[in-house]
């Protein structure tokens, strides 16, 4: 373990702890929803983090298609995997919140459903990566990422028109949020983002290491004299 990584891990741990304290102790209890509303400090930061990662995935995919840079593909696979994890957190915490507040686990509201579709698209992206042969994976995956990205606004629009039952945007809804709630939310977002980046960093290094091993084998096959088949 590099000292840089250990330091980063400690910082992330402290941030998450501070975020937890803020969310459970400092932020006031919401009047109508009660304590269950505190899941909001995890739900929303996870969503923002997932969306950001998917956006990076889209950028990296285009970068790969234009430049054919292997590092761009490594970034794409990293952000997709970690993004799916955070997206899963959103989809699990959403119903946990909805059940006590609205009396139903699931509602076909625009944001929740769009997130579900986004999750489906990126799971299919990971499946494609798994089922295609190594040499073609990056190109096919990058193409699919572009399809997925083009789909997101259409998904959102269609479901928004279909049905909207979500509480109207809590964030940016005209200062209805207590400043301490804001504080807890932002701290948790910073903590989650830092945590996500830390995991991404690890995953990215693992991916690059895997490729380095693969390249070394390939190079050995190239120079080895007898029998180019391994």
């Amino acid at each position, binding site marked *: 373990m590099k000292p840089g990584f250990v330091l980063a891990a400690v910082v992330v741990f402290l941030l998450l702890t501070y975020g937890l304290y803020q969310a459970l102790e400092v932020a006031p209890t919401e009047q109508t929803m009660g304590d269950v509303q505190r899941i909001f400090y995890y739900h929303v930061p996870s969503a923002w983090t997932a969306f950001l990662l998917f956006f990076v995935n889209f950028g990296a995919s285009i970068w790969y298609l234009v430049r054919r840079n292997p590092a761009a593909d490594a970034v794409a696979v990293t952000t997709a995997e970690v993004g799916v994890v955070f997206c899963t957190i959103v989809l699990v915490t959403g119903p946990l919140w909805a059940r006590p507040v609205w009396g139903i686990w699931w509602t076909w509201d625009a944001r929740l459903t769009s997130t579900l579709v986004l999750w489906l698209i990126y799971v299919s992206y990971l499946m494609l990566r798994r089922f295609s042969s*190594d*040499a073609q994976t990056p190109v096919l995956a990058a193409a699919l990422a572009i399809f997925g990205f083009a789909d997101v606004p259409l998904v959102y629009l269609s479901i928004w028109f279909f049905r909207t039952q979500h509480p109207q945007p809590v964030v940016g809804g005209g200062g209805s949020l207590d400043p301490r709630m804001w504080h807890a939310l932002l701290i948790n977002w910073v903590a989650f983002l830092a945590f996500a980046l830390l995991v991404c960093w690890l995953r990215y290094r693992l991916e690059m290491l895997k490729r380095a091993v*693969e390249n070394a*084998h*390939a190079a050995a*096959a*190239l*120079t080895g*004299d*007898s*029998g*180019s*088949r*391994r």
Partner: protein
Amino acid sequence: MNPTAPLPSAVIVRDLTKQFGRFAALRQVSAEFAGGKLYVILGENGAGKSTLLRVLAGLAPPSSGAVEVLGSSSVRAVCHRVGYMAHPSLLYDEMSGLENLRYFAHLYGITDMPVCRRAIEEVGLDPDLPRAVGQYSQGMRQRMSLARALMHTPALLLLDEPFSNVDVASARAMTQLLGSRRDAGTTIFVVTHQAQLLQQVADEFVWMHAGRIEKRTRTLAAEVSA
């Protein structure tokens, strides 16, 4: 027919490498091939012969290294002057020979019938044969496949195992056709296990082993005994 004035070099490869995962099919191959000659590529299975043809045909991008075909570093830019025949027939089984060729002619911007008919006659088949290619004998199918590859009078012809499972008479007819095309200025690469069939017309034998070109010889016999 003279598709091109003879080029100094029809094909140049430099440090050409093609890898499939950990398997290196071509390992830093560097070679030049003069135009208007017939080259026979020899080697055991897995020596990289077919891969070399696929790279030259533009079907498989090289992992590293450079390819120059007919004076262009982009195979795509000269693909209308390249003909390629693979081990599978590259023909639709459900259509007759002429129907197949008419379709493929369109891909090269050739719309007149006589060109297709002439190509079929050239390989010694009857253009009016109504039978679907799927019901052809292996020898007929290979000849039809050759007709598809040279229908547009390419300057570079890449043939992968054209004689496998072909009867002796068909093979001899195909060999003669290749010889006359070569005499007209076409550069021809033939990958084959039956090099003796081409002894009469070949200009050079290229021996491949484990992804490399081992040696290039004028005759076949000298090397077989060596």
